[in-house]
């Protein structure tokens, strides 16, 4: 019998296991696949390459995780840091928004003098509020000042579309934020979606690696170093162990059953899988609560897909290391969300593209995240995939006409069922997201983040809570 089980060997699960093991807890990580890594593992085939099916860059890996688990010493490095955002819209000139305010103002001036003047101030305000939100999102304390609570209340009622429309004049500037507005299946016109922009600002300012970074060796290398950290601390990682059920007695978790039929008893379980999978899929009926079960019944209808193109040559449009957001405008993003919600392929999806070098032939990978997409499309899967690829290529070709001729291979990941993101979830304190109705069961993955992301922050906090709980139990 181990003290703790961690379900899922993605970055969060591995980080949680490392922290638990460092706290002297006997911990076993159960991974369904044959290699650890979760969404960061190289599982999406693109010609001769395999790339992660999840994100293509890190948003905000918690710097404390890097430091405390000594990840740099274990081999974590970044090839690109603090990547700027470049907005591509219609046939207009690319709009580059980096950390350098002078450069950003210079880029904005031809579009709108007012935006150029206000941009720095708006960013400063966003960062100030994001700093305040740390108290709620990943540190104990909550919001202390009345004016911060009022701002939170206002943002929780404000659609991102309204916020950006009232803040900026330039359509190109507004469109450049469209991808962030569509985080986790949110609609830019949904109440509270303005919080997603605060979240994006918080990510940008809190990671040592800056707004967006690419680890050396790709995202899979992050999983590798976290696995090393976990094993070095004493955690055991069991691959090919798909959990099918959690054992619960009197609303207290007692262990897990894996697909092979093995029963593993433990005093505490941390799950890095989705809230829906953990609470609705693994627990006996009714355990999670009837209202919660009802919420979990309704999956997020809108998700994110990924198309990776292996290219023989680098299109000049994507020559600069950056994240490129290709969007027509906020209104069209809202319309796209409505189409996706209805199960249809949006005519104008919003894309985030990043160019990666392979060091082999073909030499470039263009990784494209696509939002919003229907999780359960009305079209048959093949027909939907075909339409999706055609739509994305059309949008990319408008920016880089030479792209299609250079495609050597491609890989597509369709959107998957994920947790529904709600405003109460985004404004809850971290404990409410980590602790479950079952004693001893905690969420430690993206489901425990205010907005799903690979930060390992929830893992660190959940491991702390679990270790303290075990200590109390022993005492």
């Amino acid at each position, binding site marked *: 019998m181990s003290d703790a089980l961690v379900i899922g060997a993605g970055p969060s699960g591995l980080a949680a296991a490392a922290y638990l093991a460092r706290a002297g807890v006997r911990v076993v990580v159960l991974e369904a696949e044959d290699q650890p890594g979760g969404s960061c593992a190289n599982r999406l085939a693109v010609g001769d390459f395999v790339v992660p099916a999840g994100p293509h860059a890190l948003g905000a890996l918690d710097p404390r995780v890097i430091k405390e688990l000594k990840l740099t010493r274990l081999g974590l490095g970044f090839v690109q840091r603090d990547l700027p955002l470049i907005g591509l819209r219609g046939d207009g000139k690319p709009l580059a928004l980096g950390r350098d305010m002078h450069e950003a103002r210079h880029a904005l001036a031809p579009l709108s003098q007012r935006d150029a003047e206000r941009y720095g101030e708006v960013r400063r305000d966003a960062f100030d509020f994001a700093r305040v939100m740390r108290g709620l999102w990943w540190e104990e304390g909550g919001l202390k000042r009345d004016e911060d609570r009022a701002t939170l209340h206002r943002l929780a009622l404000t659609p991102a579309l309204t916020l950006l429309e009232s803040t900026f004049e330039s359509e190109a500037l507004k469109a450049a934020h469209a991808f962030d507005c569509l985080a986790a299946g949110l609609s830019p016109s949904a109440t509270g979606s303005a919080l997603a922009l605060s979240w994006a600002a918080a990510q940008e300012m809190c990671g040592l690696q800056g707004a967006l970074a690419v680890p050396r060796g790709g995202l899979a290398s992050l999983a590798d170093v976290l696995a090393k950290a976990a094993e070095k601390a004493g955690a055991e990682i069991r691959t090919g162990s798909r959990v099918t059920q959690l054992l619960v007695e009197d609303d207290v978790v007692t262990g897990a059953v894996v697909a092979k039929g093995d029963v593993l008893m433990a005093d505490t379980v941390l799950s890095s899988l989705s809230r829906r999978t953990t609470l609705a899929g693994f627990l006996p009926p009714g355990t999670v609560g009837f*209202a919660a079960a009802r919420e979990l019944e309704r999956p997020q209808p809108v998700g994110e897909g990924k198309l990776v193109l292996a290219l023989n040559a680098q299109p000049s449009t994507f020559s600069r290391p950056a994240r490129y957001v290709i969007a027509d405008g906020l209104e069209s993003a809202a319309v796209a969300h409505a189409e996706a919600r209805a199960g249809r392929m949006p005519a104008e999806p919003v894309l985030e593209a990043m160019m990666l070098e392979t060091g082999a032939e073909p030499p470039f990978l263009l990784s494209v995240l696509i939002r919003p997409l229907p999780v359960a499309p009305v079209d048959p899967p093949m027909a939907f995939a075909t339409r999706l690829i055609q739509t994305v290529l059309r949008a990319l070709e408008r920016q880089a006409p030479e792209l299609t001729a250079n495609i050597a291979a491609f890989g597509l990941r369709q959107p998957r069922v994920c947790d529904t993101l709600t405003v109460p979830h985004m404004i809850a304190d971290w404990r409410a997201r980590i602790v479950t109705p079952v004693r001893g069961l905690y969420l430690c993955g993206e489901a425990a983040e205010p907005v799903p992301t690979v930060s390992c922050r929830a893992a660190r906090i959940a491991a702390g809570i679990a270790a303290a709980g075990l200590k109390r139990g022993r005492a």
Partner: protein
Amino acid sequence: MSLFATPFHARAAAANRHNAWQTRGGFTLASCYTSSEEEAIAARFGVVMADISWHWRIEIAGIHARDLVARLFTRNAASLAVGTALEALWLNDSGAVRGAGTVVRSGEDSFLLVSSLADVDWIAGAARVYGVEVRDATASEGGLALIGPAAGRLLAAAGIDAAAEPMSFAKAAWRGLDLTLSRFGLGYELWCEPDAALIVWDRLAAAGGGCALCPAGQEALDILEVESGVMRAGRDYTPARDGFCGRPSPQALGLSGLVDRSHVFNGRAGVLAAGADASLAGVLIDGETPLADTVLTLEGRQVGRTLSSRYSPALKGAVAFAVLTDPRPAGAMMAGATPCRPVALPFLAIPAPMDATETGSQGVQRSRTAGDWSWMPR
């Protein structure tokens, strides 16, 4: 919203001299037939007959029905023997009271929930989690409550075997009609097919001459229930309608007696985490009936608040349910600006029904004069 007539509506309409009606659970019901106070008093010496067809009843059936009722209710209804019942609450995920009712075990894998306030979505949602079927049986039967010390005598006179124990039910054949006789409330309840309802009414009316039988409207029923200390969701307190809100807790309503803390049920963590128990008590008001949520003070210090209130014709004064933080406050209490006095519930129990041969059991005794009945409180 559609309004439905109960199966007894034709007879109720004929007897409703003041044409006083009200709506409950979507059904049109007589508020009173002559005077609600007279009807309530009649239940204390004879027997009254009240239409309770509007009570929400759902059947819960399926191989996992036991698991569902075990989780759903605050007491373990799954351990009931077939034919017996218990009173319980059902709570939301945070432990707030969503409803209260009587859970009846009608078969090995089937249960019946009877409540005065519907909570269709919640129960159906819970049933879906367990793959259990629920069927709304409210409109499939007509129900009459027979309340008063002469209820047993009335049943005997009508030729119905009234041997049912409290919190149990029994099926009976009655001169060609199929009936269910239960004792979940203040007296007996008779349930029948809607088509047989008028025949049942007529037969009881014909047999009730010697028992001072009279029909009672819903207002009289409310008075009798409040006097007897029976709290109803919706009438006496507002239940939670959100899945996660924390109020009202069973403690705050003084309903901890309906919660088995050792049993694992939905919302238990919230109940265990909630504050100390408050006591449900009665308050005799020396004045007009107070509004719900009136603050009760003792020497200027708040000691509780009122829930619902009624004028009690038997006690000749206003009475109110109250939740007290101090179970035995000593001294002169005030409900707002009105003097009041706390008392233990019930204010005044309804004399238990006696059958024709009974001679003094259950706290009820025959008076010296034959045919005349007096009562002692339970």
